[in-house]
């Protein structure tokens, strides 16, 4: 075991983690721990753009952006956070440009901007050009630029280190913490993939920037490595997860594969058609059509297929038509995604429409934070020294449905904020004592998995999980389908206790780490489904066919899900009789749901029409 001490430890080296590192490493001794080489992070797969009301190509302002974000999130957005997002967007884009990001340019040489779903002028009048972009590899350029600047600033990285536990000075899973009493995050335990050694990082401040959990689904745009590690670690340590029922299904995944084709394809003029060649979005969103927010487009597509107007031999997808666009325009603005269609489906987008279907894309929910990035341990109190930013976090700027281009924005705005806040905090904070052996849980878990002579294959359990999530908790959900998923997850949690790995070695044992990651996936699926069962309304990315309407009277609240021991109280903070009072018993623990108010500043909830 090796022990390290840093003022600030950042877990994850995607956009949020590296943006935080650029701030914190200027002010405090900082380490970034990442399970991947930084440039492998999934920020690099983001394509279309980063929203900011620069007004470089047409009239725009941050207030319109705020409104679009709130409405896009079906009013479950915390409006103070959305306002920060939209205001600080402008400086965030300029920061990146000054760091060297090669944005596409207007003829005058300014940062060019294009249209994207749900971004409108003057509160929904028409689509607006707000997305700043670099061809269809904006995320790639952001990731590269941030890494380049980390190299410039000599940021210290621990690459291919998996963080497997969070250490706090109170056991939040069992202890009743008196209101106002301080709870501190004191360190993390990490596993070095190359050597199999355990490392303890003691820190004054810790930032979780571990990304999403798309691999709970089978059809997903997410990387194999997006297994919800940070969310699951927080959840296991007794911290709540917020709004986990809201998962975004991106409309245009390559059919059957889930590989993302950017919304920029529609921003540049692409049109969705059904088997009859009809531009069906005209029926669902008459004003902005194909550029409606993702939840609406994904549902419309799934509905076309359900009603028999799907294309292809099995009528199970719709078509993204770019054939009316000039090939030169496609090459200039959408080179990568057209290449994906050619490589993976053998389709030539110049002349043939591309088969597409919704793909699991983004977790709106996550570890709850306030606008400084501080992690909440209930509706009000923070864990001192613990921060989260990016997809792992829920601020909540995305509410129940994120607008395209707002995630690259989120990682930059809240990555920067959390980096600054953590460094600032570390200046006055001191190190807290670690428990006698902080590695005990991790070592036991790894040993148990490694030493179990034989058992079920990890891949079989994972496949069963992904199958049931795709079947029962996707674009359309019902109480029955979700209970089906829950029953499956319960069974899989049990089976997981008998899983084993074949690779018993110490060096670069990815077999072992995949098994550990499966544990994270099961926990995230569990909390996602329990929260979805409880929310008996349809809002944003969460669509209940048995409750097709939004119910502001009862559900205009954030879900807060806690894992608790069986003997703990059945009531969590924000308990609302009949609505946020759900308890689900599992083997050895239970999931208790509470709620948290939605912060509303300027915008009254309205019906969401586009």
């Amino acid at each position, binding site marked *: 075991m090796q022990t390290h001490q840093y003022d600030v430890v950042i877990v994850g080296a995607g956009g949020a983690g590296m943006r935080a590192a650029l701030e914190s490493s200027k002010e405090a001794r900082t380490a970034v721990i990442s399970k991947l080489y930084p440039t492998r992070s999934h920020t690099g797969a983001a394509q279309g753009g980063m929203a900011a009301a620069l007004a470089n190509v047409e009239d725009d302002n941050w207030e319109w952006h705020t409104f679009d974000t709130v409405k896009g999130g079906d009013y479950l957005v915390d409006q103070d956070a959305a306002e920060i997002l939209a205001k600080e967007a402008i400086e965030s884009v300029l920061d990146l440009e000054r760091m060297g990001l090669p944005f596409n340019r207007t003829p005058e040489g300014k940062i060019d901007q294009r249209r994207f779903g749900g971004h409108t002028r003057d509160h929904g009048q028409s689509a607006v050009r707000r997305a700043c972009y670099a061809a269809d590899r904006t995320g790639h350029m952001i990731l590269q630029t941030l890494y380049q600047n980390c190299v410039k600033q000599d940021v210290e990285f621990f690459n291919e280190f998996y963080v497997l536990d969070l250490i706090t000075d109170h056991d939040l899973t069992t202890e009743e913490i008196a209101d106002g009493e301080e709870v501190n995050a004191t360190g993390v335990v990490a596993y070095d993939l190359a050597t199999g050694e355990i490392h303890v990082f003691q820190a004054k401040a810790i930032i979780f920037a571990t990304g999403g959990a798309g691999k709970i689904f089978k059809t997903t745009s997410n990387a194999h490595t997006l297994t919800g590690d940070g969310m699951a670690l927080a959840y296991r340590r007794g911290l709540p997860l917020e709004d986990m029922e809201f998962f975004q299904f991106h409309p245009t995944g390559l059919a059957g594969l889930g590989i993302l084709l950017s919304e920029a394809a529609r921003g540049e003029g692409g049109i969705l058609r059904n088997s009859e060649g009809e531009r069906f979005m005209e029926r669902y969103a008459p004003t902005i059509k194909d550029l409606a927010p993702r939840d609406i487009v994904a549902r419309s597509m799934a509905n076309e297929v359900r009603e028999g107007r799907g294309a292809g031999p099995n009528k199970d997808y719709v078509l993204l038509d770019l054939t009316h666009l000039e090939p030169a325009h496609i090459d200039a603005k959408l080179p990568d995604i057209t290449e994906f269609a050619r490589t993976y489906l*053998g389709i030539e987008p110049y002349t043939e429409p591309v088969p597409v279907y919704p793909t699991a894309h983004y977790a709106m929910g996550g570890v709850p934070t306030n606008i400084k990035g501080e992690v909440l341990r209930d509706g009000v109190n923070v864990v001192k020294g613990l921060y989260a930013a990016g997809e792992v976090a829920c601020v909540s700027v995305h509410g129940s449905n994120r607008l395209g281009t707002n995630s690259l924005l989120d990682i930059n705005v809240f990555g920067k904020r959390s980096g600054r806040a953590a460094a600032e905090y570390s200046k006055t904070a001191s190190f807290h004592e670690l428990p006698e052996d902080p590695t005990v849980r991790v070592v036991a878990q790894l040993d148990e998995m490694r030493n179990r002579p034989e058992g079920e*294959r990890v891949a079989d359990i994972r496949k069963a999980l992904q199958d049931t999530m795709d079947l029962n908790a996707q674009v359309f959900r019902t109480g029955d389908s979700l209970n089906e998923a829950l029953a499956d997850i319960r069974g899989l949690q049990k089976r997981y206790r008998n899983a084993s790995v074949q690779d018993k070695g110490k*060096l670069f044992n990815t077999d072992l780490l995949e098994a550990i990651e499966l544990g994270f996936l099961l926990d995230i699926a569990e909390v996602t489904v329990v929260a979805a069962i409880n929310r008996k309304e349809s809002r944003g990315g969460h669509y209940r066919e048995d409750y097709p309407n939004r119910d502001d009277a009862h559900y205009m609240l954030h879900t807060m899900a806690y894992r608790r021991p069986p003997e703990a109280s059945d009531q969590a903070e924000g308990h609302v009789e009949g609505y946020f009072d759900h308890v689900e018993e599992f083997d050895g623990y239970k999931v208790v749901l509470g709620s948290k108010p939605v912060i509303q500043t300027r915008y009254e909830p309205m019906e969401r029409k586009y």
Partner: protein
Amino acid sequence: MTATLDAPAPSGAIASFEVTLRIRRFNPEVSDEATWQDFTVEAHGTDRVLDALHKIKWDEDGSLTFRRSCAHGVCGSDAMRINGRNRLACKTLLKDVNPDKPIIVEPIKGLPVVKDLVVDMEPFFASYREIMPFLITSGNEPSKERYQSPEDRARFDDTTKCILCAACTSSCPVFWTDGQYFGPAAIVNAHRFIFDSRDEGGSQRLEILNDKEGVWRCRTTFNCTEACPRGIEVTKAIQEVKRAMITRAF
């Protein structure tokens, strides 16, 4: 416009088939020697080499070790040597590499092998860091963005695509025999900044690459250009850097 379009050819039209992967195995915990091992798996029309590797790892031999993440050619984790050519496993369709014969899968060359298909990437990233891969400017930062014409932006567009997968560098015969050579990827990333009109560090980078382990070692074999999964004209970029070194015009 609502013209009716013909449905495209259905995906997965190619029936499933059996494919054998002949994989270079190495595990220093077991033996100092690398060995070849054959695995035969069932594959489907659009399956990639990565899918076959996953099938082996998930259903047959969990100890088979390789890196991967995004699985669609943008993260750069899974560069490997497939039938003697450097490619990304996630971008190489099995049907395109003649699945009638065993497909040979080896780690990329020129970097120390850690285990099976995993190599130590540190020497590769060290070369990258040496060429100062970041924008260098002087004076006060502008209050808004720096302006750059679309033409100036286009000048270095090709080299901004690099995903640092090392397919180019590890396909270079010069790099195989001399691990000190900066290699194509580092030069590509130097090019990305040398030809960026906003950057003022071009001379410094050219000085670094004028080193005996710099651009002059390039023998223009075009392996790197062929290997690049992002379609970057790597050799051309290296030539442009060489020319800039002579003319000091960039």
